[in-house]
């Protein structure tokens, strides 16, 4: 934040503040705007999507991605990066279709153990001052290895209650949308509006100040990693409820999707600058971009590139808005 303030120091204080606030609002609105534009285009291309069933079909696989994105956002907000998110969620999925289905008690114990491992990772990364990228990259191999040990060939069955849970059809609004809204709002109030949230984010943005104010950075990191592990577990469970069975590679793509979701949603790799609402919207944008391409019916040769082009376009808009913030009109 220092650079922007310096470069506009010559402008009168009032206009500078106004312009900066406008740019910040624009930045916060961007994820929502891109999502609305995407949805509108989809509804025009495929009016059938504008129904309860349509929204449910398009968005139910977005819920595990949104949960993974929130988990990744918690890690990014303490200025770390989790490269094991996808393999962790795959591991959870494998636990869910094997242990959790046959021995529920052991299954829950294993899932609680997963959260515990994440908390330990946070402690390790903080106390030994290790780069999180390296530690989590190493962990990703461990998770995949564990998943293959549990489920050597694709299969397994998700517990019936889990399948029923993710298929609940509430009146009027599909479950996927309700979960996303609740998730976004809850995390927004927790992380952006509560006192605890300010401290947690501060540990990423300005760890020195937080430590000087008497907070334990170790406990903050452990708490954030444990919460990330918790959301990872939720993501894996929701995913496996939808797919009904798993394989060891089922969610590998979630690592990059979750990072992309956080960034699309207005977060940054600097610690402390994240937006829970934006992260959920970013995850939805990623999923809907895929749907849109399939509705436009572009040739398969181009589908692969086009999905990337949409992401680059949204990020370019972000960059443009960021420039506004640095040098207001």
């Amino acid at each position, binding site marked *: 934040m220092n650079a922007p303030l310096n470069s506009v120091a010559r402008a009168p204080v009032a206009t500078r503040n106004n312009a900066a606030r406008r740019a910040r609002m624009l930045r916060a609105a961007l994820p929502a705007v891109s999502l609305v534009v995407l949805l509108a285009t989809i509804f025009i291309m495929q009016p059938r999507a504008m129904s309860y069933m349509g929204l449910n079909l398009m968005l139910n696989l977005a819920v595990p991605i949104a949960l993974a994105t929130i988990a990744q956002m918690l890690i990014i907000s303490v200025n770390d990066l989790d490269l094991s998110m996808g393999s962790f969620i795959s591991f959870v999925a494998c636990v869910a279709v094997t242990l959790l289905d046959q021995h529920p008690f052991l299954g829950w114990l294993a899932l609680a153990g997963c959260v515990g491992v994440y908390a330990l990772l946070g402690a390790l990364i903080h106390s030994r001052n290790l780069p999180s990228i390296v530690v989590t990259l190493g962990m990703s191999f461990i998770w995949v290895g564990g998943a293959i040990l549990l489920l050597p060939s694709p299969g397994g069955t998700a517990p019936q209650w889990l399948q029923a849970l993710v298929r609940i059809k509430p009146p009027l609004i599909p479950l996927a949308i309700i979960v996303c809204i609740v998730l976004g709002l809850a995390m927004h109030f927790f992380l952006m509006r509560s006192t605890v949230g300010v401290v947690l984010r501060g540990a990423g943005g300005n760890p020195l100040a937080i430590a000087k104010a008497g907070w334990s950075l170790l406990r903050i990191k452990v708490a954030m990693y444990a919460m990330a592990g918790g959301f990872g577990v939720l993501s894996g469970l929701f995913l496996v409820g939808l797919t009904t069975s798993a*394989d060891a*590679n089922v969610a590998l793509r979630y690592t990059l999707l979750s990072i992309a979701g956080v960034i699309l949603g207005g977060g940054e790799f600097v610690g402390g600058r994240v937006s829970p609402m934006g992260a959920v919207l970013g995850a939805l944008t990623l999923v809907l971009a895929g749907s849109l391409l399939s509705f436009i019916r572009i040739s*398969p040769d181009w589908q692969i590139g086009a999905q990337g082009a949409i992401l680059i376009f949204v990020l370019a808009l972000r960059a443009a808005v960021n420039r506004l913030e640095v040098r207001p009109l």
Partner: protein
Amino acid sequence: MKSRRHPLRRSLLCAALAVAPLMALPVASHADTADKKIALSNNYAGNSWRQLMLASWQQTTDKAVKDGLIASADSFTTAENQATEQAAQIQNLILQGYDAIVINASSPTALNGAVKQACDAGIIVVSFDGTVSEPCAYRISMDFKQTGIEQMDYLAGRFPQGANVLEVRGLAGVSVDERIHSGITAGAQKHPNLRVVGEVNGNWSPTVAQKAVSGVLPSLPKVDAVVTQGGEGVGIAQAFVAAGRPLPAIIFGNREEELSWWKKQSDTQGYQSFSISSGPSISSLAFYVAQQLLDGKQMPHDLLSPAVTVTQQTLDASLKDLPKGGIVSETYSVDDVARLKPAASQ
């Protein structure tokens, strides 16, 4: 793309002309599917087999649309070979109102949720090559275990006095690899004088296979034969040449570069071998199965597609019309659907 498709198109046209008189009668009964839409959901397009598979789909469906057999048959490929992405793609296809979805699946199980949703929406789901285990879907696939046994049967006839065999496997953890391997193991039990002396993973790629075989060769006794899963033959041959070892009998996978190499060796030094793989035109077969199901035909849910083999006798004929980078394949017509054999339910 255009120029590469040409030979295929030509052979298809020939086949179409040949069967045209036979086709004249059934056309009337096809009118029932004239307003139906079929979609292809494909998980990967990054190797020659998949490219030819997509080209075969395109050829067959273009003609079917022109003939009024079907309203449309679009193909969709996911950006990355990931089950979650393909599940989302299938849900989009449900939403787009397709009457049948033909799937080459990234995972035999992880798409089951989406496939069930499609079935519940009254959509016919046909999976081929990479099949799905959801009972409501139809499955067309080669009997992979049988291809493993056939490779060993050929070697047993070729080396009646016994032989040392090296097994080059595919991608670890994938069900096809597991099934071909079980066939090889069964073949080794059936012919006890064939001894499997080594086992490496070639990942269905000539370059990976070359590296893997080069790495294991120094530790092996004399290798008389190599069994493969298709597509890595030339890489294996190069590994033997580089190590200064005598060339073993390598079982090939119907790729043009493999057959050309085989032909050159057999012309110069009387090299003999055998080649077996599934043909990429299985996508056309899957299309016809979907169309026939839409037409109201009853079929078992598990169908066996024939394997395509090339022997020393048919080598020249197979190579003649094969374009560079192509794979030996059969041209299927709607009548082949009736000849499909049911498979044991999975």
